[in-house]
């Protein structure tokens, strides 16, 4: 049994908006073992991003409150003061976001940004330089040496994302939170960066929480997947099993709506309607209004429960599938 690295129990986030109180995470629980990759998949507004950030106590928006239990290597993150939390995040937990332009410092060279982080962890300047060069080369950044003195705006989008990943990995974190890390990139560049990220992750024995709306990206890189909808995990399980035999009607509908053949095969199986308004959620299952199999009892809460070894779903019909 690999060591349990990160465990989130019953995470609730809430903040006030014009429409009323919004709860992007409504009792979310998941765990990640050391070296494991968990995917958090969902459509816009499902709460996946807020949930992932809140799980390491990064509030978004800042007025949001966080409830639940967050254990990292057995330590309760909610009991840490700001200083201890910052130290832990700097050493053990790194993050890569979708938009590297916003995450990189525009007035510092790539090299200075890499060296600065490396030095936070001790070590000499020449060690920092060697580590930075080796990582940039591993990320297939051509002429890495000269790129160290470049500023972010002098690099292409794909190049900036490679640098951002290098920044996240330079301290050899044990957990990487990757929030749509390749969504802004072209698909051929995405394919290369995903492969490089996975290669480095294996070498470092690093665990990852991968947030994406893209089922194909999730399918390629994750060991397990949790599917979110309206602030809840609807289904969770090993990636291949979940993608090939989804048990929750939402997962099934989501997978079916991806185009696979041609229009001669008939219309795409779309999910009718729209995701619910998070400020006005109906009682019970949030998917009931769009679910082909909804019945009266769907207005009662459906807890995420074990339905088969390693698999969970929040639907009373999950076994029937």
């Amino acid at each position, binding site marked *: 049994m690999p060591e349990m690295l990160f465990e989130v129990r019953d995470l609730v986030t809430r903040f006030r908006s014009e429409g009323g109180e919004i709860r992007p995470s409504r009792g979310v629980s998941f765990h990640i073992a050391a070296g494991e990759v968990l995917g958090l998949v969902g459509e816009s507004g499902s709460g996946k991003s807020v949930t992932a950030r809140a799980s390491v106590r990064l509030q978004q928006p800042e007025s949001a409150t966080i409830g639940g239990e967050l254990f990292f290597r057995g330590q309760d993150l909610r009991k840490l003061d700001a200083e201890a939390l910052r130290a832990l995040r700097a050493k053990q937990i790194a993050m890569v976001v979708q938009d590297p332009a916003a995450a990189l410092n525009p007035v510092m060279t790539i090299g200075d940004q890499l060296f600065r982080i490396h030095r936070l962890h001790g070590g000499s300047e020449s060690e920092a330089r060697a580590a930075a060069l080796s990582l940039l080369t591993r990320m297939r950044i051509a002429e890495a040496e000269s790129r160290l003195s470049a500023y972010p705006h002098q690099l292409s989008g794909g190049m900036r994302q490679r640098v951002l990943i290098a920044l996240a990995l330079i301290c050899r974190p044990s957990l990487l939170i990757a929030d749509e890390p390749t969504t802004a990139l*072209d698909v*051929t*560049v995405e394919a290369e960066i995903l492969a490089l990220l*996975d290669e480095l992750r294996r070498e470092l024995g690093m665990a990852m929480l991968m947030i994406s709306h893209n089922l194909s990206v999730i399918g390629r890189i994750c060991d397990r997947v949790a599917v979110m909808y309206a602030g809840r995990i609807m289904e969770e399980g090993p990636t291949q099993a979940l993608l090939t035999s989804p048990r929750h009607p939402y997962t099934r509908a989501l997978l079916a*709506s991806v185009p696979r053949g041609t229009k001669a095969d008939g219309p795409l199986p779309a*999910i009718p309607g729209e995701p619910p308004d998070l400020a006005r959620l109906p009682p019970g299952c949030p998917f009931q209004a769009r679910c082909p199999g909804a019945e009266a009892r769907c207005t009662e809460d459906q807890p995420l429960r074990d339905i088969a070894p390693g698999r969970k779903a929040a639907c009373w019909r999950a076994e029937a599938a």
Partner: protein
Amino acid sequence: MSPPLLTLDGVSRHYATKPSVLGRLLPNQPVVRAVQDVSLSIARTEILGLVGESGSGKSTLGRVALALEPPTAGTVLFNGAPPAADLPGFRRRAQMVFQDPQSSLNRSLTIERILESPLVVHRFGNAAARRARIAQLLETVGLRADMMRRYPHELSGGQRQRVGIARALAIEPAFIVLDEPTSALDVSIQAQVVNLLVELQQRLSLTYLFISHDLRLVRWLCDRIAVMYLGRIVEIGPAEALWNAPRHPYTKALLTAVTAETLVPPEAAGDVPSPIRPPPGCAFHPRCPAAGPRCSRDAPRDVAAGDGVMVACHLHDGGVA
């Protein structure tokens, strides 16, 4: 066979880059070759997919096809005549749907005003007739007529894109350029909108130029596919021929990137070069796994490669040596 509805012959579109103060004093301003020597035609009621990554020039080509920008070289013919021969008539027959309905719909106008505008411009009936037409248009795109009193921000992303489609249909065009119409939408909503586009195309005998970065979606929707890379069409042919047997290494890389279920070694290395200084010879050669000495020297010509496919690659024209 009926003559094509739209023909592009040797079309290029170049932009001058914004010169720096010093740059203005120098001759030979750098030029962005957004579109370079493109020839293609679209038959009546055909759906042609235009696939490419960012910077490939696909959106520029769409704008040139609609005479929103003049070609730097080459000719555009619509129904056998240049658009300029009868520009008001051309504008009635050729319309556009944009990627992001959030920014392409005027946020200070009601849906009714947004849809009335093209009717007023093209002198459609009196106020009562226009109002009836707007109600009919909303129904055509699957929205309730009372939506006309709403503002864009009160609609969901999918509903806004339906309004964008209704606006394009207002004056009964024959030809529509759709520029990434679903890429801002979640996959379940994308399926609804794509099904609507197919239904409208069949019911109203429309001709589409469908621009997308998503090869899977284009294969589902389109009769033929053109693949663009750095301003040029590298491969064009029947959708199933390209999907089942891609000839150009770039088409292969795109296809692998969207269909791979595991992290396979990417078939295109590195990032997309800038269209200001496209690589010499074949622009794809620095990223191409099959490139040989000839590829950095000679620009490939278009050659027939069977099954109605045209490809611009030395592999299919005497080899890369």
